[in-house]
């Protein structure tokens, strides 16, 4: 039996979604002439500014396209569902946003994305546009600390992209924006939990199974298996397991400040995310650190997967300033 979706032909889902997005947000977004899968910020890209290009597979909305706009990303290259975009849209993004100060690619650390964006970067080099790359690796569950370079990028993208986008918006040079992006990535930690599978529009089959009553901690945002499966626990226990792991990675000192994202994977109601946030904030207070800002909602999803993730960004003066800097995206605003 097919999973329930409000779609037409599953193979058209991504392109129809992008049409719907441009119809709703044409004031801030447009498609590139060269590629319908390259979505460009109408305001943002400008001469002398480092261009920030993000991207990855579809199915994580509002990531990535929702974070394109003034003060954040200048463009996003959009792939098929859970599939890296090919080099062409990424290259189209580069050409559209390049303001002479170079371009930074930022995306989650997945084999496919690395290969495709690297090919795009090689092509850009042929046009004498300097492209640097910073991979996000915030998913602490995706590899042990001694293999940090194997970790995946998940909901923490939200903070990492935001910091880099703000740095570029401050007209810092490529060197500096890259440095800040790496710094932001190094200080951002995410743990996720999944309660149900999701299904691709093209297959309409559950992409894995998670039996009644069970949850999986550390599951990837594409349904990649996680680190521990077991019976669903109370919210406070789930959050405690996440926070223990996050605190374990982050060596915060008394009085340090953090930014928090309690993120829904798609099918989990705000009620549950805010219940989680209550515990997250209690744990942060117990740790003797304080929360500078909190976001709660669906920021990095996995289609209709039920579950959530908690991201903590360990702030310093620079990161706090960059996170607070206004931005205007179709699906996210800081004022």
């Amino acid at each position, binding site marked *: 039996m097919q999973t329930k979706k409000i779609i037409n032909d599953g*193979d058209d889902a991504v392109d129809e979604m992008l049409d719907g997005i441009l119809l709703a947000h044409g004031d801030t977004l447009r498609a590139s002439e060269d590629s319908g899968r390259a979505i460009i910020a109408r305001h943002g890209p400008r001469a002398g500014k480092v261009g920030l290009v993000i991207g990855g*597979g579809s199915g994580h909305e509002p990531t990535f396209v929702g974070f394109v706009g003034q003060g954040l990303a200048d463009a996003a290259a959009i792939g098929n569902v859970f599939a890296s975009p090919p080099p062409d849209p990424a290259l189209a993004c580069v050409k559209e946003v390049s303001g002479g100060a170079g371009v930074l690619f930022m995306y989650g650390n997945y084999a496919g994305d690395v290969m495709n964006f690297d090919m795009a970067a090689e092509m850009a080099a042929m046009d004498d546009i300097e492209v640097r790359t910073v991979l996000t690796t915030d998913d602490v569950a995706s590899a042990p600390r001694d293999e940090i370079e194997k970790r995946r990028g998940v909901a923490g993208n939200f903070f990492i992209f935001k910091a880099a986008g703000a740095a570029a918006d401050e007209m810092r040079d490529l060197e500096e924006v890259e440095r800040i992006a790496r710094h932001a990535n190094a200080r951002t930690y995410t743990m996720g939990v999944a309660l149900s599978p999701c299904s691709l529009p093209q*297959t309409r089959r559950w992409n894995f199974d998670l039996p009644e009553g069970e949850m999986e901690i550390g599951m990837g945002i594409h349904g990649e298996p996680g680190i521990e499966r077991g019976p669903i626990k109370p919210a406070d226990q789930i959050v405690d397991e996440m926070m223990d792991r996050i605190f374990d990675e982050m060596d915060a000192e008394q009085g340090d400040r953090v930014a928090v994202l309690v993120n829904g994977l798609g099918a989990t109601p705000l009620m549950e995310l805010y219940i989680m946030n209550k515990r997250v904030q209690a744990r942060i207070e117990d740790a003797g650190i304080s929360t500078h800002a909190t976001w709660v909602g669906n920021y990095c999803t996995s289609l209709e997967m039920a579950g959530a993730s908690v991201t903590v960004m360990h702030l310093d003066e620079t990161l706090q300033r960059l996170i607070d800097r206004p931005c205007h995206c179709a699906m996210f605003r800081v004022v």
Partner: protein
Amino acid sequence: MDANDIKAMLLAAADAMDDARDELCALDGEIGDADHGVAMSGGFGAIRTAIADLDGAVPTDVFNTAAKAFLNAVGASSGPLYATAFMRAGAAVKGKKQIDDADVPGLVSAMAEGIAHRGKAAPGDKTMLDAWGPASDAATAAKGQRAAVVLYAAADAAAAGAEATAGMQAKLGRAARLGARSLGHKDPGATSAAMLLKAMAKSMEKG
């Protein structure tokens, strides 16, 4: 064997990928993100369309067209890997209007090298290279025999290689995070590779 035979081979591969779409998605679901079948059938579907209106072409053109079509339709991991494989194949027979039996092992090896170059995988990493590597060796060993025979040898080696991936721990790709948990599951990319080669061999036999 001319451009049309290459086209026929690719069309046969495309049909095979359509048939295997759900099976490959299910395999990918066990250790990856459940979309490998979508990627392969989508990629070869794009090849089907692209080579349809490609007349009076030489084999290299067909391979290059296939490379571009697959890459832009798919992205993902398989996109760059197969795009590079096809570009290398095109380069291997550059300038030739006709390909004879002796060229076929070189074609298979070129594809395997393209995948190895692009993906930087090592044998035993539990990737499609664990099918393409053995396929390349078998094809080389079969050099001198008829094209279909060479391709069947490659296909059989690829199938054996794909089976063997079930006993490997993933080191690359989405499955890598699984470590030991990836044991017992065949790698989807290696599995599709074996299917491709088999379909190509069959079509060569007919044509």
